[in-house]
């Protein structure tokens, strides 16, 4: 059952990568990266139990903290309106299409 859950999480990570590559807006990509990071925490802790080495949980804790800090950091730049070029690019793409 541990291996089945690991495979399910791997499938979800592939889906998140697909959305991060497709993503029409910037926020879709940030959302997909956030989902990918959370699922990485779960994958690391599950792999620790599959391999019989629960010491991997330390790495999972550190990865959860890094994931949170990365998302909040990117959104801080977004609040400072540095990403406005991205929005204009999206509008021009809509006009072209």
């Amino acid at each position, binding site marked *: *059952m*541990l291996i*089945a*859950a690991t495979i*399910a*999480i791997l*499938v*979800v990570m592939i*889906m*998140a990568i*697909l*959305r991060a590559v497709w993503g029409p*807006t910037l*926020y*879709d990509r*940030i*959302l*997909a990266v*956030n*989902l990918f990071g*959370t*699922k990485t*925490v*779960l994958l690391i*802790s*599950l792999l620790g*139990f599959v391999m019989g080495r*629960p010491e991997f*949980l*330390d790495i*999972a*804790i550190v990865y*959860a*903290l890094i*994931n*949170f800090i990365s*998302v*909040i950091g990117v*959104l801080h730049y*977004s*609040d400072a*309106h540095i*990403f*406005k070029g991205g*929005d204009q690019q999206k509008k021009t793409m809509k006009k072209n299409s």
Partner: protein
Amino acid sequence: MDISSAVFLLIGSFLCVSGGVGILRFPDFYTRMHAVGVTETLATAMILIGLMLQNPDGLVLLKLIIILLMTLFISPTASHALASAALQNNLMPELDKQENNEKESSSNP
């Protein structure tokens, strides 16, 4: 104990897969964020509870509880920050404006 752990892991993987299908197939950013944000916390909690029921010793159990608490605090915070940032930068949800206009015109002849 083993059966309950398997049940929790199964529910968690089902919720994970449903969140992944949601992020692929929903039409709008906010609906995608609904799918991810709703399933993410519950799936993580289910899988970590399933791991807690695998009879680990004390320190491993403590680490699992720490990961669960951190995920339950971090994931809604990130979702809230993401939604507010998207709204502040004028990312409007897709609405069925034609249908609304038709309903208004039909209700007010």
